[in-house]
């Protein structure tokens, strides 16, 4: 299963942030600016940013899915739809240029805020 589609019931066109509080960063991670692909914050625990599209969906790898699926389920995501051929992702080492998703709203998982 190359990729897994997850879908939030209400959030649309946001960068959804899920923190895995079981995994501390060895060194705090200074996330890139929202325009590049991050949230601009400093993370103490392993953080995953999901760019939710206009339907509230994102595709994640099986490696990411296994790590955060319980959290996603708590947040109301629909889970587990296999995507056989996920689209390619681009990373550009040219920070003056905004990322494909641009400066979209950052949303934190309610489960994270409860911790």
């Amino acid at each position, binding site marked *: *299963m*190359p*990729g*897994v589609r997850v879908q939030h019931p209400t959030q649309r066109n946001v960068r959804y942030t899920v923190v*895995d509080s079981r*995994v*501390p*960063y*060895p*060194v705090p*991670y*200074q*996330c*890139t600016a929202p325009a*590049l*692909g*991050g949230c601009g914050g400093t993370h103490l*625990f*392993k*953080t*995953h*940013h*999901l*760019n939710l599209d206009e339907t509230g969906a*994102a*595709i*994640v*790898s*099986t*490696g*990411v899915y296994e*790590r955060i699926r319980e959290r996603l389920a708590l947040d109301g995501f629909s889970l587990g739809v296999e*995507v056989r*051929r*996920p*689209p*390619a*992702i*681009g*990373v*550009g*080492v*040219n*920070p003056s*240029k*905004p*990322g*494909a998703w641009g400066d979209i709203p950052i949303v934190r998982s309610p489960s994270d805020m409860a911790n």
Partner: protein
Amino acid sequence: MANALYVAFRNGVLGSHATRVDLDADTIKAALIDHGTDTPAPTTDDFYNDISAGLVGALSSALASKTIGTVAAGVFDADNVTFTAVSGNSVESVNLLKDSGNSATSDLIAYFDTATGLPVTPNGGDITVTWAAGGIFTF
């Protein structure tokens, strides 16, 4: 942090490091690194075994069409690199290294944590790293 050349690589160019990198002749590869497992330290890490625990997926194929001083004076450049069907954890940085075949002797070269699309959450598909038009780095 910010994009940087590894200090050990810089010192190696000047002759103070045990091994030296020949960007033209050596096999240069890229690595996607999960900082939750192993955060690179460009000022102190010197060989790939310092960060290899954080590798997501596999090393890239060898950088192709390398040029030195062609884009501009002192600039190293190469073709963009694609990681195929990346299925692992989220990635915070892209790193360049000389692949000697032994992680304990594979010099770390460059660290990129500030780029469009980083951090990246893999989706199981390919991840293509596009270098800046002005080259990968200037020495």
